[in-house]
């Protein structure tokens, strides 16, 4: 079996480095305002709620809800395994923080809008890509 094509990885800068490397320590890091506690994503150094410049990465629970999803059936690149799920997840702490992601470790056709999911990380080169899996937990 040939390995799937590698994930096209993002260019890293001072703003997004924490998001793409937090998985090394098992943490999903989302920028948050130190003054008013609003989460700010994509990560920037300005809080749109209170205009504070004290905004930095903080770990979140890694849990969220699927706001939308598409089951992709077309191999847009040779060797790309299909079907796969591309989803938009709203994090529990602040659902207007949307993460585009894949839902993995499950039957792609079984995933639904509204399902609860939790993060798991996949290392790719020097980055840790946040993926999500179904969350059956009742904690």
């Amino acid at each position, binding site marked *: 079996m040939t390995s799937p094509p590698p994930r*096209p990885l993002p260019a*890293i800068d001072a703003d997004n480095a924490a998001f793409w490397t937090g998985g090394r320590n098992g943490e999903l890091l989302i920028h948050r305002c130190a003054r008013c506690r609003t989460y700010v994503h994509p990560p920037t150094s300005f809080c749109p709620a209170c205009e504070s410049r004290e905004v930095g990465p903080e770990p979140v629970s890694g849990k969220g809800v699927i706001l939308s999803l598409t089951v992709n059936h077309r191999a847009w690149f040779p060797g790309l395994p299909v079907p796969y799920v591309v989803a938009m997840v709203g994090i529990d702490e602040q659902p207007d923080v949307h993460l585009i992601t894949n839902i993995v470790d499950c039957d792609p056709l079984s995933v639904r809008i509204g399902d609860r999911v939790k993060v798991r990380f996949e290392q790719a080169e020097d980055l840790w890509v946040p993926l999500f899996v179904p969350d059956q937990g009742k904690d």
Partner: protein
Amino acid sequence: MRWPEKSIAITGIGQSRISRDAGVSALSLTIDAAVEAIRDAGLTRADIDGIATWPGAIPDGSGFAPVGIPALQDALRLKVEWYSSTRETSGQFGAIFNAIGAIHAGLCRHVLVFRTMYQATARKQGLVNASYQPGQRTHAHMGWHAPYHAYVAATQQALYFARYVHESGIRPEQVAQIAINGRRNAALNPAAVYRTPITLDDYMASPILSTPLRLFDCDVPIDGSTAIILSHRDAAADLPNPPLRIEAIGTNMHYRNSWAQLDALATQAQPEVAAMMWNRTDLRPADVDVAELYDGFSFHTINWLENFGFCKRFEAGDFIEGGSRIALDGELPINTNGGALSAGRMHAYGQVHEACVQLWCRGGARQVKGRANGGPRVAALSTAGGPLAGCFLLVRD
């Protein structure tokens, strides 16, 4: 005349041959469209004192934007007082909106606006996935999508459509009417690339690319160019075509301009853009005789039907069911040339060209009768999807 756009009009149109294999260069197609538009307006090259396009040349071989202003200006040896291209604007109509501003500011009087695509030939040359280049890191908004193999528009935008389906309950056999209507109209349009009518069974049998999108929900990459001439009303009075006045425009950016963070998933960024347009006119949705609504994907058209107010929120499925309301002889004919789904991806400029064809009653077999057979007088036009949106009303007085 409170709003400046009301003093600007479309005075001429041109279009190259639209095809799946042009056999001539993208610049040659652009010249075809531009020369035809200038002559249609009753002007000469010397009269053109402005040029605008969206998005400007992107020389990546993908055919998305092969021709920019410098290439056309030089080929036609135009001498202009103002020119501009930009991609960061209200969808593809941004070039038109910029030209309106420039004309109103007195910088120019007759602006050539064009859009050229060369994606059919580019695909034959194997440059399909220009956005996926293994080993290279991706920048900007694609950096949030590409790691998840969501680098094509179909997959990215399917997230909005899936949310719309979830909230509205629209059924596939209702969605199908956009594609079926387009192909029915394209059968009457000799310039369309796909002209064989399709049935509901054909639609349901077309492969799913990325749920809920089927192949027949997606527009058709083509080679082709469209051009229009925008003129100041005072400079249009003696020209051969009745000026088609810009009645109102919608250009705003009130939502988060992000493909991932857009805060209006089920409607996309259209509602406030449409509201701005209606606030700049006394016309109402019931006054519209023909609507040329963006159909890069069929769901864009469905969204625009609701966001323009042609039907209520989440009732577009009922509105288009059976297809009779949106047919050429229906209460709101839409995408009368076949749209991008069947006439080809002119990227919103096909819609502009067709709105003019209809308002000038040049539609031949596909001409909308309307207004007690004097022909349609008011056209609604829209473009783009996701965080991008633009729209305007075009009026034959």
